[in-house]
């Protein structure tokens, strides 16, 4: 017994100083990042949460009327609004469609990039970069010109003069979705291309020697090896497409005919921020954040379960 105690004591006395030093070093190293994150994320998030439980409109911001606590009032107003639910469903379906289409186009072109010679690869990359670099407002406006009812190039080429793409709910969503995919596939393509290039040639060669088809190589070699990269790309796309604002706002003139093309962000802007209802707007913001957090966690969890840890 005594020896054990003394051994422990010795270990403690000799090991303590370095452990302590090691213990503090990460704190100092993390501090700059923590300060930046705290200022840029924690504090605004705290304010967002606080505003969401207050009756906070323009009159309260300017001090014309006192601010008061309404508890879950803003949330109750939100959840009892039937339009919130229909807009939420439309947003989820629209975002899911955009994410799938973006991934499919991005992945297909990434594989294509690895298989073509230098000049076409350069041209394809340049074209994709150009689409990526166009500001969302300009891009949406240009597409609007292309699909204009009377004077648009597309309608003239297809002989559809007088067909209004924005009149039907689904044609409008499809057109906006195409613009979203057009603007976001380059990120997916470039990231996946870099990932595919990093796969050792010997692995692909081995698969080829075993007689694996391109299709099979893609699903059984490339996709599993790209899992970490894919995770980032999918999460990014989900977050971007769920929060879609500019394309809808510009192309459907703020939500389409009778609000048929509203997505959550545009609806929140209309209901809350343009109307100076900051409390309600914050509540919508909190709900959107929670939904995105939940989706991301679920996705990461399924990835972890099906494969090696990320």
């Amino acid at each position, binding site marked *: 017994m005594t020896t054990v105690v003394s051994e422990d004591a010795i270990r403690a006395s000799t090991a303590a100083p370095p452990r302590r030093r090691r213990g503090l070093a990460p704190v100092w190293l993390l501090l700059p990042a923590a300060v930046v994150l705290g200022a840029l994320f924690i504090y605004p998030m705290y304010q967002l949460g606080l505003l969401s439980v207050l009756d906070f409109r*323009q009159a309260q911001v*300017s001090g014309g009327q006192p601010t008061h606590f309404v508890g879950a009032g803003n949330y109750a107003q939100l959840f009892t609004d039937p339009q919130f639910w229909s807009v939420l469903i439309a947003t989820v379906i629209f975002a899911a469609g955009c994410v799938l289409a973006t991934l499919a186009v991005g992945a297909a072109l990434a594989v294509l990039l690895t298989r073509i010679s230098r000049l076409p690869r350069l041209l394809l990359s340049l074209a994709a970069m150009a689409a990526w670099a166009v500001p969302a407002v300009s891009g949406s406006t240009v597409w609007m010109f292309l699909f204009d*009812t009377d004077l648009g190039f597309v309608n003239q080429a297809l002989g559809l003069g007088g067909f209004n793409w924005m009149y039907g709910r689904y044609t409008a969503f499809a057109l906006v979705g195409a613009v979203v995919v057009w603007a976001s596939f380059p990120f997916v393509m470039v990231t996946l291309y870099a990932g595919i290039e990093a796969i050792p040639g010997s692995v692909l060669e081995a698969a080829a020697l075993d007689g694996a088809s391109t299709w099979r190589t893609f699903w059984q070699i490339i996709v599993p090896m790209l899992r970490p990269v894919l995770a980032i790309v999918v999460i990014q796309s989900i977050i971007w497409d769920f929060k879609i604002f500019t394309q809808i706002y510009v192309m459907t003139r703020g939500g389409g005919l009778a609000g048929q093309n509203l997505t959550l962000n545009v609806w929140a802007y209309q209901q809350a921020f343009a109307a100076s209802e900051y409390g309600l707007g914050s509540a919508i913001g909190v709900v959107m954040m929670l939904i995105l957090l939940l989706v991301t966690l679920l996705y990461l969890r399924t990835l972890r379960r099906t494969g090696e840890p990320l």
Partner: protein
Amino acid sequence: MKSRLAVAAALALTLTACAPSTSSPSSTPSDGGARTGTLKVWLFDEPNRAPKEKVIAEAVTEFTAAHPGTTVDIAYIAVDTRSARFKGAFNDPASAPDVVEYGNTDLPEYAAAGGLADIGSTVTGWSEGADLSADAKSSATYEGKLLGVPWYVGVRALYYRTDIFQELGLKAPTSIAELTSSARTVRQKKPDMFGVAVGGKYTYAAMPFVWDAGGDITAINSAQARAGLKSYTDLIAPDNCPPQNCADLTGGKTVDLFASGKAAMGILGNFNRAAVDAGAAKGKYAVVPLPGSKPGSVAPAFAGGNNLGIMKNSQRPALAADFLTLLAGKKYQTKMYDAMGNLPTLKSASDEVVAKDAFLKPFADTIAAGTKFVPLDPGWGKIDASAVLPTMIEKVATGKASVEQATDEAAQQIDAALTK
């Protein structure tokens, strides 16, 4: 230990910054403030600002000559972002202007925010104040306080193409029924034209129909309001202006349609004259008041326009009042009409410009027949921002909902916004 202190200090810092930011309005000097120094003025920027700027420069010269030791700092703010600028000015008194031009529909929101000063006594003491019409004054009054002087108004009337009406043997419509049948005749005889350009997002063209039928925004699901709405949405149909083309048109787009010769009629404002004269319709149109359902009557128009007001935070309210009454007086209202075509609000000034320019007569007649206004309530901002009325019109025009369903839904949203 040190790090703990640092964390504690950081926490203490955050805690003090916990409450959401609310500014406390500074008190207005009771003696009228300094009579010298710089007076800050905000006016709306406009597409063709040069003539406005010239008139304002004249007014500033006259003002500084009469008030030694003062300078006037004029800023032209963009109409699109005015809301953000005004909110900023209310929240930060130090950078706020003294005299402001603002849209009369924005009044309730600014008033509820406590941003505008009561200028009732200024107008009572002003020699030309009695010349303001009651309609005009009431559009600037919120909860019994006069928060601005109407500077100019704009009303809409019916523009029609004289050449096409003559060709088809039509006469200027004197009732809604005549308007509708003339519009259908035009569309039938000239299939590439619209009879009357109407739009689902053009609230101020739809509301006269509702008001004429005896309805109002605050009771949009009444039988009268429904009848009025129906007579408007009946125009968004293939026999006049097909929903595919017209359901999502804004007021600005209908101006384009009429000006470019695509439409034989349009419900346009006196302020759209320059745009029409710049298009194919130039010299081939005339204007009559928008008719009501009873033959020979005039449908009540929406009296849009801008007011001049004084900010509550102003440190020089007396000086600001002097500048405001100078700009709002007959002399500069008339000059502003000459420069910009804005209809004066003072009876004397308005009589003078109508006598000079026959074009204005239908608009003056429309005003004389009585005008209407949006509900003077801070909730109007919400109704406007969340597009309640355009959504209602579009639902009916595209057949997504019946008149009854669409108006019930809109009435519910309007009530919710107004009672908040």
